[in-house]
């Protein structure tokens, strides 16, 4: 390829040199048909190579765009609990290193935005069901240890039931540690 480009450079320079010679000798030289044709051939070859570069670009973009959307959906589905996604080997093994980086950066942006008004509203809280009651009865499915709540610190051990403030433990329900008892 570099051979060709050098040749291309040479051909083009040759044409320009002819024009200069013509000016310097104040004479009209013969039309250099073969040189012109060679240059046009070179141009066409380069154009084809450029086209090949562009092909498949749309499909690549569609694939990545789709994946990124799924990652974002996954992120919001767990209420922005990034460790929950990255520590899950099932999911982690399906991500490329770039996707992991993407998730980390996305998470830091969301957290930064969220912190601006977190005293008023928690944007990572679940909105699937409108709030009905202040408190909720939960059943512990997986140990989550001691959690700070409005009513004090509670040690959530598997199999136990607690009546707690919904806002405090909503994220634990979303991640599967607690189960709401109707």
């Amino acid at each position, binding site marked *: 390829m570099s051979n060709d480009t050098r040749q291309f450079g040479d051909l083009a320079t040759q044409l320009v040199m002819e024009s200069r010679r013509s000016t310097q000798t104040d004479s009209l030289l013969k039309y250099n048909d073969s040189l012109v044709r060679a240059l046009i051939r070179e141009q066409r070859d380069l154009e084809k190579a450029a086209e090949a570069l562009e092909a498949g670009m749309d499909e690549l973009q569609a694939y990545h765009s789709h994946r990124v959307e799924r990652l974002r959906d996954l992120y919001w*589905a767990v209420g922005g609990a990034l460790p929950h996604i990255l520590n899950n080997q099932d999911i982690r093994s399906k991500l490329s290193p770039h996707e992991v980086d993407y998730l980390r950066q996305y998470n830091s942006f969301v957290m930064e935005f969220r912190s601006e008004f977190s005293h008023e509203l928690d*944007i990572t809280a679940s909105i*699937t069901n*409108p709030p009905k009651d202040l408190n909720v009865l939960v059943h512990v499915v997986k140990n989550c240890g001691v959690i700070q709540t409005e009513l004090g610190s509670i040690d959530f051990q598997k199999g136990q039931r607690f009546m707690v403030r919904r806002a405090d433990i909503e994220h634990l329900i979303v991640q599967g540690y607690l189960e709401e008892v109707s």
Partner: protein
Amino acid sequence: MSLPYSLRTSITPPELELIATQQLIEIIPLIAIEKTAFISGAFGPLQPPRKAKIPLWMAINLKLRKKCHIVAPEWLSVEFLQSRLDEEINEPGFSKLPFRYAEISKVLLDVASDDIQNTDKIRSLLKDLREARQAKSREGLDQINRGELSVSNLCSMEINEIRPFFVHAMGILTHLHREASTEDQL
């Protein structure tokens, strides 16, 4: 995106219920409460036995804790609903009902059935009303066109029910119309 899948097609009935509970309703308080400020405005003071108007969500909360009685709205009565049902059956077009009657009646029947007369009859009337109106919606499917849909007196839940389908169908009709007219031009 951040919106959960289950909320993407349309608003859900629980959400419509939440919106409906912002409406004011009359209660007979059983305890006294001072004037309190909420995000949506200040309510109170509540001075038993004087009636007061408060948002439905607050009334439900008080009722569940047995701190008030709810005064049933005028339209939640056998007479009113029966006359509307008769109109529904005998006239074309939809009868005029409170916009959020389905949500409010559901919530009140759940929580305050002791404050309402003839709850069984009312439940059955509401069911008949819903069925009659639903049947009319289905008939109206014939008249769907690509341009606009103009129906009077549809209520909140009914609109929400038909919206996804109608919007999608009208989109397809527009698409077909465009194809047909470009073919004519060719």
